[in-house]
């Protein structure tokens, strides 16, 4: 059930795991395990995704056309070399779409505006 590409306002704000997943994929395509590791690193270990949470988010992001699936790539392991040696089926990787990139940018802008508003208010209080 894809939705219109030009309308991203209804996708915001993003939940924290979703934001980190998109942020992780902004670096390049990754498979599931690499995303989990990267999100943990990006959040300083505060967001540890379970497989259920990860794939629920991935399914939703695929549906919203924010990411796309890349079949059969084995070089998307990020910093998880211990899993790359594992034999078996080629891993499915995910990468950000242009719309996904826009959403990340929009979310960052939203967060920045929040921070900016907070800074202004706090700066004003300090000045008075």
């Amino acid at each position, binding site marked *: 059930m894809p939705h219109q590409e030009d309308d991203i306002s209804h996708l915001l704000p993003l939940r924290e795991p979703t934001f980190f997943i998109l942020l992780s994929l902004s670096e390049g395509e990754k498979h*599931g395990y690499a995303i989990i590791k990267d999100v943990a690193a990006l959040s300083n270990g505060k967001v540890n995704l379970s497989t259920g949470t990860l794939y629920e988010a991935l*399914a939703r992001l695929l549906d919203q056309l924010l990411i796309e699936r890349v079949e059969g790539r084995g070089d998307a392991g990020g910093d998880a070399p211990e899993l790359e040696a594992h034999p078996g089926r080629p891993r499915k990787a995910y990468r950000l779409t242009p719309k996904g990139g826009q959403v990340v940018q929009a979310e960052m802008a939203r967060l920045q505006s929040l921070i900016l508003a907070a800074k202004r208010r706090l700066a004003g209080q300090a000045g008075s």
Partner: protein
Amino acid sequence: MNTVFIQLYRRCLQLFSPHFRQEFADEMEELFRERLMLAAAHGRLALLLFLVRELAGLLAGGIRQRVYVWRARPLLAVSTGGGITMPRRGGQPWRWAGYLFLVLLPLVMLLAGRHLWYVTLDSTYDVRHVALGDVNGDGRLDAFLSVGSVGDGYWRADRVLWNEGDGRFTDSGQELGEWRSFAAAVGDINNDGYVDILSGSYSGLMVYQNDSSGAFTTTIYAPGDFVHRSSQLNVVLADLDGDGRLDAFTTGCCGWIGQGARYPAYSEVWLNDGAGGLRRSGQHIGQTGSNAVALGDLNGDGIIDAFLANGRTIHDQDNPLPAMARFRQWWRAMAWGLMGQNIYTFNTPNTVWLNDGQGRFMDSGQQLGQSESMAVALGDINDDGFLDAVVGNNGADEVWLNDGQGNFRLGQRLGRGLTWSVYLADLDGDGDLDLVVGGENNGRVWLNDGSGHLRRGQGFGYGRYQSIAVGDVTGDGIVDIFVAGVETYQVWRGVGDGRFTPDP
């Protein structure tokens, strides 16, 4: 041990929608498997924390995924050649129609459920069955009353009424049975020349042996067996194995589910051991639920076969109904406070079972009708020489016509409402079989025009907790209708032309 965790993980994946599982389950399991091995390598505590986080994540993810799918899907999908994708948000008419539909649907089903459950939940009957027979050998038809539950909630004993002649009955004073009876049949079970009585009840299968004076000694078969399985709802006597002695055919409806166990209903044959006793043949006939049986040679081989009138069969979560029917059952269960018991009922078609001559019955494979059937009688209605069947239903009654090979086709449909008993007899003296139908608090006569077509005849009323039987109780050679209650009885005298007049 890892295999156990992986199995558990697979089970938890059921929380997600089928489409999701098709897309991601393999990938998720593969990743889980790898992370499981890594966690196990870090010790038991790490493994435990990992498992807790994974299972919690599956639960939360599964719920979120289902909610997402539900929210994104139009409530009423309109399918055309190319398909129409409904917009997600806004005040689209179809969406509001969907909300309205979902609000109204439970209301309609509640009303339908109340109507449909009325019979099942409020089917208490003082006298469940009346069997007529000359019990004390005076040449008059006496009456044996199978007494079920009564309006005041207490159980009462079965009764024997002596026919004093001219349709006047007196109570024999005997109290037979222990607990809620359903049906009885009369016949000489022990071959001593006197009429005995076979009774199906909660207490078990009861044989009341007649001492020749009409006083009875009781033998109970399968005591307590009945409570869970309702396996003797209808009892009929006939020589089923060709040894010249009366055997018994008992039917069961509708099964029972409780205390963690399932008790399917089935019918049984009890063979006469020649010494006045009955023994189970061991065959379980049908796995549905039969409210009644009628015995007769249905395929012309000279051996007595069985026509089973099937009612509602009780199932639990293995319910094979289509999804919509399951929802209806679920809704009824919710409306009547039966939720959590996972009990569903559904109508089962009537069946024909052919006897091999040894008392073993084989299913003919016919599935006749879809009604909740309560009673059945056999007789040659269309005068073609073959036994036809009249089935009394919760709904329109049905005539099933026999082609002589034991194959039945639907004939006439009669009336509507709940039928508890059906009797075939020549009521108007024209030589063909007419029909008497007994309902919950009234009955009706249907007269045969000679070609097998039944036309509506006289109706007659009686108390709600009474039951009827048909026979010449007045001794004038004309069939009468006997209506019995626990405290009273009434005779509708046959005039001889298909009409009946009630005794005061």
